[in-house]
Structures are given as structure tokens and as C-alpha cells.
């Protein structure tokens, strides 16, 4: 438990760096985890080289899904969209630094699912995005 609710996770949950919406955005997607009612929207702004210059998220969720989203957005600032397309499930787990049960894994990976659906400009998200 002390592992799962590490200080960094509680900190990002209580005081996220990227909470909000972007008025001027290039990529955006929102989705939910019907199992728990978590809902996340991610907005991205890129420069002329497709490099992320701003990122925000809005919505509600548990400590795992919110901190995972915030940590993910921290990690992609300054990165190119092509690099972000290569992110995997393991990258999220590395960011969180915890092991998760299958149910909580869905909470942790909602952020990656939303982010990938946004940058691939999809109408619907899919489990394929978070392998």
C-alpha cells in the first residue's frame, strides 16, 4: 500500500501540474473508463516541428489515473509527436514506479489511451493503443 500510494502519486493527484484545458490546441481527445467512471480529456499544443509546447488535462478520476496523466504530460513536454507515438504501457508503469493489479492497470493506462487517440486523431480509442 505504501508502495501504491507513494508520495509522488499523492502529490501529483493533489497538485497536478497540467490541470485545465487549452483554448488553442492542435490535438485533443476525451475518454472514460466505464468501470469506475474516470473521465480524462487531454489537449496538446505543438510548434511547427510537431514538438509539444503545452499540454493540459481535465476530468476526474482516482489517484492512480490522475497522477499517471499528470506524470505522462510532464514527460512529453518538449517531445515530438513521433516520439510520443512510441510510448508503451511499460513507460507508464516506469513513470508511476509501482506494480498494479489488472483492474487498477486500466486506471493507470487511461491517460496513454487518451493521449494516443489524440495524436493519431482517432474518433474512438482502442485497447490496441496501449499494448
Amino acid at each position, binding site marked *: *500500500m505504501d508502495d*501504491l*500510494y507513494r508520495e509522488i502519486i*499523492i502529490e501529483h*493527484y*493533489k497538485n497536478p501540474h497540467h490541470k485545465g484545458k487549452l483554448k488553442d490546441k492542435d490535438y485533443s481527445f476525451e475518454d472514460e473508463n466505464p*468501470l*469506475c*467512471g*474516470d*473521465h480524462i480529456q487531454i489537449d496538446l499544443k505543438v510548434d511547427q516541428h510537431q514538438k509539444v509546447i503545452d499540454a493540459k488535462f481535465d476530468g*476526474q*478520476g*482516482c*489517484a*492512480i489515473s490522475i497522477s499517471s496523466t499528470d506524470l505522462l504530460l510532464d514527460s512529453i513536454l518538449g517531445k515530438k509527436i513521433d516520439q510520443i507515438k512510441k510510448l508503451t504501457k511499460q513507460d507508464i508503469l516506469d513513470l508511476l514506479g509501482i506494480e498494479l493489479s489488472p483492474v*487498477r492497470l486500466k*486506471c493507470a493506462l487511461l491517460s496513454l489511451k487518451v493521449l494516443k487517440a489524440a495524436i493519431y486523431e482517432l474518433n474512438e480509442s482502442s485497447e490496441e493503443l496501449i499494448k
Partner: protein
Amino acid sequence: MKSEKIINSFPIFTRKIHGGKPLVYLDSAATSQKPFTVIKAIEDYYKQSNSNVHRGIHFLAEEATGLYESARKKIADFVGVKNQNQLIFTRNTTESINIVARTWGRRFLKKGDVILTTEMEHHSNIVPWFTLAEEIGIVVKFIRITRNGILDWEQYLQLLNLSPKIVSFTHMSNVLGTINPVRDIISSAHQAGAITIVDGAQSVPHMLVNIEKLDADFYAFSAHKMCGPTGIGILYGKKDLLEQMPHFLGGGDMIKKVTFDGFTTNSIPYKFEAGTPPIAQAIGFGAAVDFLSAEGMDNIFAHEKELTTYAYESLSAIPGLSIIGPSVNDRGGVISFVIERIHPHDIAQILDQFGIAVRAGHHCAMPLHEKLNIPASTRASMYLYNTRDDIDDLHKGLFHILEVFK
């Protein structure tokens, strides 16, 4: 109630989890634990009497049929039904409600017909009606709940002016814990010319229910929430309604005669029990009813009432915690709550590490959570084996969570 004796009747409570912690099980609204007697009845059937029912002319077949049918009789007695043939064995409450929708509903409802249900329903009493709305264009209306989590009686009476064909509602809410005034709802529905369907999944396990006194037209419940096995439930129906209804599944046991030209259906309840039924589960269900009767449903209800009152006070004292639903007077042993700024998933996860099992999520009642304007809630639900110690452990666990999220 002598709690020590009751706890010792359930083998699972010797189990230790997460490195030696005893189990604090507060999730009986999802499914109850099973006593030795139920497990043994199922084991005995498989070891000594295993055979198919209703067909064989041999010793075991007759014994198995006797056990299966006497279980039906026991369950009928338990819920105040004189003719046990009005009890159909189904898979669960969900299937029971679906059978009514798909047989009575499809046969007798037509486009524009109104059916009433309530805002506090489980998905199993909403989706079957929406399915008929899509298929034949019936109109589904919801009886509102008030801010206190009880049905808005005035609005219900107004909706009855629409001359609904069916009023289908829960006896006790699995989220709010609200116990509805079933008898009054039914008599008003009857005056308006509607038939009634009662979802008794949360009531029959916890209180004395007499279906015939309530005058319900259909009544559904599940074994697994009342100390019995999974995979079996009951649909009760009034005799004339069951006889009017077309069969549900076609196959063995449900026919009287089959020729190359067609078939005639068997009498009730067999008309609705196609194929080999859940025999072991029926026998286990009978043993569950014996177990509950021996403890006494009034004693069980009183024990849960006392515990719910204790839990309500204990949880109300936690800063930032709000209990959803009515006061203790109007509710059974279910307490759902939210804590400011802490998601139910995190609450359930941290409690689990203390060996405390609660449920987090929308509890198959998404429209209700939408109405309450919360994405999810945490639910602690009680049964005859819970004690004040369990509530004290929950209380301690919740204070620990406040520390973690401080």
C-alpha cells in the same frame, strides 16, 4: 444474535489475507458468504445423489428429483408462497426480470405503452425495458427520488395517470439502502391497472418477505446473496400470468409433447425451465433457506438494523465523508458514501490492504449516480455475520486513508 456461533458457521472466515490479516467482509450486497451447511448439501448431492431430474426411472433419479422439488417447496414457504409451482428456477434476479420482459412484455406490450421504473434501479431493471423500447417502442418513465433518497410519492401518483402497463421497482436499493413501501406501491399500481414486478435481490436475504401478502405480480431474487450458491435465482409469478406467458427457452423439460409438426408446452413451472436445471444449486439454495430460517429473518433484520445504526453514526463522524441515501429508519444494511477529494477506488484499494472488502464504483446503477451527481461511491454492506468490530476496523481504515491523502 450470537455472533461467534454464526461466524463459525462460515468456513471463509478462517481465511487470512495480505500477510495474516483476518477478513473483514463488507460486500454482501454483491454476494454473501456461504455457510458449511450449504457447501455440504451441494457436496452430498454430488457424492451421493447425483442424477438428472424429472426423467429417469431409477433410484438416484427419483432421489435427485425429490431433493430438487423439496428445495422449491422450502423456498416457497420461506417467501410466503403456498403453491411452489409459481416459483421458477432461473439463473439469477437479472434473468428473472429479463424473462418477464421478453415473454410477457413481448407478447402483451405494444408501441406507446408506458412502463414505470425508478431512478434507484440496478441496471438489470432498466436495460431489459430499454431493450423493449428499442424493439417495440414502449416508453420507459422513471419515478424520481427525493434528496433524501426515497421515492417521490406525489410524482409516482402523477405517473400512474399515464396508465402504465407495468410498474417494475426494487424492494431495497443496492446503493442507497432505501427500503421501498412495496405494499403501497403495488396497491396504487393495481388501482391504475398496472401489473407489478419487484426486484427482491437485496430484500429477501435480509428481511421477512411474504410475496403473497405484498400482492406482487412478479417477484425476483437470487440465491447467492442469501448464503446460497451462484447460478440460481427465482422468478415468482401469479399463476394466471405465468400461464398466459409464452415460454422463454425451448428444449427439454419445458414441453408436454413434440411431434414433427410442432410442440405443446409443459405446465408451470417447467414451461420456463428448459434443459437440465441447476440441480446442485437448487439443493444448496434449499439449505441456505434452512440456515436463514433457523437464525430467524426477524433476528437477522434486527441485527443488521443495530449494526447499520452503529455504522451510520461511526462513519458520519469522519471529516469530509457524506453518506448517500436516507436516514437509518428508511434503510437496510447498505451504506454508500463519498469522501471529499478521495476517489472510491483509492478508498477500496487502501481498505483492502487492511483486509477490509468493500465495493467501489457505480454498483450497476449508473443513472442513479448521474442523478446524485457523483461519478462513483464506496459501499459497505452488512449481513448476519458482521459485527461492531468490522465497523470499527472500517472506521480505523478510513482514518488511515485521510492520513495518506492529507
